[in-house]
């Protein structure tokens, strides 16, 4: 019974991710794609959590925090690239 509820949740999350993948492919601007990829990462966190309940293990709980941190760093890096054209500048107060 409980497994059925979990499988239904995984199905709906997969449908949500398909919608987000549609936005990644179709998205008119790059910003749409970046936001959609960030949301795919967060949906992946939910899928990992549900699958770790289904498999009855807590070995994947580190993965959840890991995906969250990586999605954050990746989104910040991409938005900085869109905003300034460089990801890391040598001296932000200098004239370069």
């Amino acid at each position, binding site marked *: 019974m409980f497994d059925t509820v979990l499988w239904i949740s995984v199905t709906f999350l997969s449908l949500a991710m398909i919608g987000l993948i549609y936005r990644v492919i179709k998205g008119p601007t790059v910003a749409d794609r970046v936001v959609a990829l960030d949301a795919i990462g967060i949906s992946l966190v939910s899928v990992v959590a549900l699958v770790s309940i289904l498999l009855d293990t807590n*070995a994947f709980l*580190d993965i959840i*925090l*890991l995906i969250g*941190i*990586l999605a*954050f*760093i990746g989104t*910040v*890096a991409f938005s*900085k690239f869109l*905003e*300034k054209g460089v*990801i*890391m*500048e*040598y*001296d*932000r*107060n*200098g004239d370069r």
Partner: protein
Amino acid sequence: MKTNDVILQTVTKVTLFIIILFSIHLFFAGHYYPGGGFIGGLMTSGAIVLLLLAFDIKTVKSILPIDYIKLTAIGLLFAIGTGAGALLFDMPFLTHAYTYVNMPLLGKTSLHTAVLFDTGVYLVVIGVTMTIIQTIGESE
């Protein structure tokens, strides 16, 4: 043009400690749970990359005055030293030893020389990753 990154810099200052604590947890949990030197080193360098994104390379160099190539060399020295230490006790290369010690605060703790080897892996991963990223970031 001077830009204003107050939100990014404040969030970075708070998040950095969470990421570094998580990487240290992954490093020390490696013997009994998923984790270890490799993923711990990658998460630590991820924290430094977040610092590089929010600030600039010059500021991060003044915060963390580390020569990452030397860090790689120290890590390799740790790994080889752990392996060669077994030769002193008439054992084959890379033989590890462990013992249980009653620490004053931690209780019964297992001390294993594989932790020293893992420290080598941790330092090498941080050194190599940061050398690659900083070398690419500095090039004009």
